[in-house]
């Protein structure tokens, strides 16, 4: 039988840590499970940039990925691996809700687990936060940890 995969959205916040803790509980209960933690760097191909930003973009992107790994993913990976879980980390650029959903499809995940962060800013109020949009459009079940 194939392993059951959980996708966990991490953003370095307390809520993200709670989501990972919940995933670990589920994995323990279910037995043969894999956890994929994903950090999404908010990015849009339609944002406007200056010529100089464009020229240095590749460099910036590498730095962003390295920082996300170092600050958010690696500590969680080390800790969770030490506890005996099957876990991997992914960093991607894009829209958080879209990336988590496409990752779930790509890895044939059973569900997506994210922490609930209160709506931040005007954009989140108008268009809904990541949790709201994911719950509305995801192709796999979503668990939102309060």
């Amino acid at each position: 039988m194939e392993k059951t995969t959980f996708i966990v959205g991490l953003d370095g916040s307390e809520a993200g840590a709670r989501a990972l803790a919940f995933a670990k509980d589920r994995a323990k209960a279910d037995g043969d499970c894999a956890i994929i933690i994903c950090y999404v760097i908010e990015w849009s191909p339609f944002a406007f940039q200056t010529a100089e930003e464009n020229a240095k973009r590749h460099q910036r992107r590498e730095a962003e990925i390295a920082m996300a790994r170092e600050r958010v993913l690696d500590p969680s990976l080390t800790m969770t691996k030490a506890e005996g879980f099957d876990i991997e980390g992914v960093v991607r650029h894009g829209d958080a809700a879209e990336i988590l959903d496409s990752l779930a499809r790509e890895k044939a995940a059973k569900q997506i687990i994210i922490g609930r962060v209160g709506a931040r800013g005007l954009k989140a109020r108008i268009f809904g936060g990541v949790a709201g949009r994911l719950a509305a459009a995801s192709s796999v079940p979503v668990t939102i940890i309060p």
Partner: protein
Amino acid sequence: MSKVNYIVAALIAFFLPAMATAQEAVGLDQRINTIFADYTGWYVSFIFAPFPGTDFSWIALWLVVGALVFTIYFGAIQFSGFVHSIKLVKGDYSDPNDAGEVSHFQALATALSGTVGLGNIAGVAVAVSIGGAGATFWMIVAGLFGMATKFTECTLGVKYRNEYPDGSVSGGPMYYMVKGFKERGLPLGGAMAVVFSIFTILGALGGGNMFQANQAHAQIANVVGDYPGWITGVVLALLTFAVIAGGLQSIARVTSKIVPFMGIFYVLVSIMILLINYDQIMWAFGQIFVGAFTGLGIVGGFTGALIQGFRRAAFSNEAGIGSAAIAHSAVRTKEPVSEGYVALLEPFIDTVVICTMTALVIVISGVLAQDPETGLYIWNAELGQITTAGDVSGVALTSAAYATAFSWFPILLMVAVVLFAFSTMISWSYYGLKAWTYLFGEGAMKELIFKIIFCVFIVIGSAASLGPVIDFSDAMLFSMAIVNIIALYFLMPIVKRELHSYRTRLRSGAIIKTKI
């Protein structure tokens, strides 16, 4: 702000009083003008020299003929590839693994922010007030041809760019001149690159800087009343310096976000005015079409309209000048041709859409005086243009035309002109810097020297009425096109080979859509 930035800011502050004094001392302005005109006047006259018996500068024809040659050579790529270009910009063919890199859309938007500006607002007004409605027709025709030039230069820009170990990129005509000529076994590539770089630096300081600063100040003074130009210059110079040297990317980011919306808003207001006057749209198109072939009473008739339209298109979208090849080369793609496709949308947006909107509103608003009986324009021989309300031209004419529908428009136009000028300066500071580092090598100190020179020229541009200096630097901008288009003629077989390979793989399914 680092220590170096403080020192530079202090240096600028030190020079300011000197500039203010220079402005007050009109004599100094005039002396500089005279000296400059004596030494450079012949070159300016040479670049903008008309064909005997016409007032059509050969440089505009050089750009239009180039565009025509590329259109024929690449089988009217601007029409056959238009839909594919849109799909590329939408990201239909983008590799998901490249998320976070520079997208096709971003490269296009950045290049556009350097070209959309005063040319679309003031330049069109000048063209229509001299060439009549018919100039619009020829402007559209030249804009459509220019799309093929951009395709050629931007494909080469990406193909021959330098990618450095730290991941940053540098590209542009100087790189394809050297590498492309070497690949084809042709001599003089290096020499052309050096000449092109010198023209680019001078063009960046002039057309891409002093002219913009000068016009931005003129527009603000026009709305709020006259005040010393150096004040505008200092504010613009400090803002620019904060962006390009101080690393204050937040200002650049705000500008790069506002400018596109300003452009979209400008087009929307134009469409609204056209909709309000919907019953006149067909009449306006009739005027444009008839005027294109008869001139409707302007001096020079048919050729008068053609000259003005061609000139405006060539000067507005920068096709063939080579600046776009620098801007587009930062894109993340394995296919240089794909960026060529994207770049061909630039003259379309700049000239065919935005310039045409300005022209249509001016025609429909009725600010150009026409004889009610004959329908011919009333020519003002003294000013050398069609009689307009208040005998205005340039930005003021565009402003008057839009104000016939919305009285608040001149204020919006002032904001738009200043923002467009600022974003054009930021873009050209980058083009100039790339040419500078090509000549003198990369390095923080060398780059800082150029950035300081660039900012000092902003103050000079807005404070002084240095006509001959600005004329000379404008001539430099078009000198870039002489070298660049020669290089394009020699390198176009390489682009054709790339295009053939790309199209074959597109048909065979080797290049597939990533977005369904």
